[in-house]
């Protein structure tokens, strides 16, 4: 606890100076001390609850059951934190399209599919997983619980004493106290996040992967948030403001200090982007489908276009078509038809692209072309779950 402010101070001092040459890279992790077991009533109690929760998780339909992908993600974690440490973690991939990963006190790591869709390389994934592992290594779960307990204990007393008093002054000072207790609770949460960021970057500096990727993760997230806000007609988000109840430091701050803490020599290392792309390929269409259902046009389009920086694939054209068709204005349908056509040009067997094309053309009034595309869809996948419905839109009802 004493060491923390000093280490943090180093990183933040580097921030304040604002010059990459003066910044000290995040320290390398201390040697691994071996598996730790919970100590004290609180920690043992939390582990037990956590063990029960992991037991339910292991049998949950939310878990993506693909041994290959799961062991790949576990492998990236091991590459970041080292083989001795990574044995403490059990990785579960959850089908949930938002950007998140967690690691709980007993070593259960939950990785959301939305995170896998957003990061672009092994180094970026390792940056996030290393951060989560930092929470685990610093026992942030149990410490956070103790801080919440301390805060609510004070508030409970203050509330009881204030409600027993009839004086306005006492009630007002209770309100002030309440704000300051909440304020320091949330500040504590943000300091935990900064500590985990620092630890995560320490792992990355010591690994074979490029530590500069950590900062890239946050830059990309900000890009997505901006794109999302633009399409919704909202103001450009402020990435450096801290809300009173924010649990994490602002993205802008994180992107800056993470870039300053990265070991400069590390920039020449590989980031494993090719390996990452190959591992994710079989799952990309499904992750994109789930992302599109979030109804976040700007964010989804940003993600698709960023994935397409490595070249447009039929799957990406198809996803973009689905995105535009889902929003469904007439102008969107014209674009969607165009994207589906590009997908079909690249892969003439992509059945769902014919369905999308057909449905878009029907709405655009190009009935004959639409029906032709739908017939091809039925030909290519006669057993599709929506085949019956599609047949109703095609005269003759069958593909002949």
């Amino acid at each position, binding site marked *: 606890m004493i060491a923390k402010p000093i280490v943090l101070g180093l990183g933040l001092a580097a921030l304040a100076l604002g010059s990459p040459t003066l910044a000290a890279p995040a320290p390398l992790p201390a040697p691994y001390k071996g598996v730790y077991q919970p100590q004290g009533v609180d920690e043992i109690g939390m582990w037990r609850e956590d063990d029960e929760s992991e037991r339910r998780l292991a049998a949950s339909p939310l878990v993506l059951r693909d041994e290959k992908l799961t062991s790949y993600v576990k492998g990236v974690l091991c590459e970041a934190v080292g083989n001795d440490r990574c044995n403490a973690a059990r990785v579960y991939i959850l089908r949930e399209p938002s950007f998140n990963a967690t690691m709980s006190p007993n070593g259960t790591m939950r990785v959301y599919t939305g995170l896998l869709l957003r990061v672009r390389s092994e180094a970026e994934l390792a940056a996030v997983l290393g951060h989560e592992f930092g929470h685990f290594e610093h026992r942030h779960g149990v410490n*956070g619980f103790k801080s919440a307990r301390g805060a609510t204990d004070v508030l*409970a*007393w203050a509330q009881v004493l204030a409600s*027993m008093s009839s004086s306005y002054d006492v009630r007002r000072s209770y309100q002030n106290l309440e704000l300051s207790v909440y304020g320091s609770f949330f500040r504590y949460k943000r300091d935990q996040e900064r500590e985990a960021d620092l630890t995560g970057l320490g792992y990355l500096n010591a690994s074979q992967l490029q530590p500069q990727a950590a900062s890239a993760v946050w830059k990309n997230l900000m890009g997505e948030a901006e794109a999302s806000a633009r399409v919704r007609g909202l103001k450009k988000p402020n990435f450096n403001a801290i809300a009173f109840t924010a649990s994490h430091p602002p993205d802008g701050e994180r992107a800056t200090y993470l870039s300053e803490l990265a070991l400069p020599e590390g920039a020449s290392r590989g980031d494993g982007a090719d390996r990452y792309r190959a591992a994710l390929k079989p799952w990309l269409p499904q992750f994109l489908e789930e992302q599109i259902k979030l109804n976040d046009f700007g964010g989804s389009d940003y993600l698709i276009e960023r994935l397409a920086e490595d070249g447009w694939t039929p799957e990406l054209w198809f996803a973009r078509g689905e995105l535009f068709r889902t929003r469904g204005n007439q102008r969107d349908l014209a674009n969607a038809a165009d994207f589906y056509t590009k997908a079909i040009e690249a892969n003439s067997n992509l059945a769902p692209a014919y369905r999308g094309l057909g449905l878009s053309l029907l709405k655009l009034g190009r009935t004959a072309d639409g029906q032709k595309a739908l017939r091809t869809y039925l030909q290519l996948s006669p057993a599709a779950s929506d085949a019956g419905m599609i047949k109703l839109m095609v005269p003759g009802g069958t593909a002949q």
Partner: protein
Amino acid sequence: MKFVLRLIALVFACASLLGTQAASAQEKSATKEGFELPAQSGKKILVFRPAISVGAQSTGGLFEPNAEWTEQAKTNIRASLDKLQLQLGNAVVTAPEAYGDDARAVEEHMALFAAVSQAVIEYQFFVGNRLPTKKRDNKNDVFEWSLGPGVASLPGASQADYGLFLYNKDQYGSTGRKVLQLVAAMGGVGVKSGEHIGYAGLVDLKTGDLLWLNADGAMGGDVREPEGSEKRVRQLLEDFPGSTIKDDQR
């Protein structure tokens, strides 16, 4: 995300301090119409992994899980359950450990039972809040809830007649909470110390129908002690079909 849950817990903990008690016009148990289980009929009851959690309540009202108390409670409750069911003439069988798809099916049904029993408590036991189809004047004052026939394929189901689900959560007020309660009471402010919730439900393993449910937000008996656990299980089973437990106590 864990943080959001914690924040919610925090807000609730503070809000519950001065909150009012739940309305009292609430029923606590019900049996499916026409279901009878005469004593000494020698039925086999399959017990699924009971959800038991015991801990303390901090001064501010947070749940502080305690692993040792939980383990004691598990052992004690199981022993009392065996003993009382034996008195009724039923045999208690533990559901076998499940793997793969079986484990997922069990987990799904445990979650389903939790959801159904919550619905029963909310929409049937709380009389003023009954769903239209569960109202007396609708001639539907019947206890008709089901988990569906899928239960028949759960591991161990073919060897037993009924399935028993148990949920138990105990929070014992910490010293700090009790002192707070005392001081608050002197000032005329109500602070609750501790929470003791128990549910037990019996399910027909062939049809999945819920045969009996007992749910109580204020249970007695200290589950950390063998005698206390027996009191708790007696309370849980007091309206169990064919049970004479209630009469024993008089």
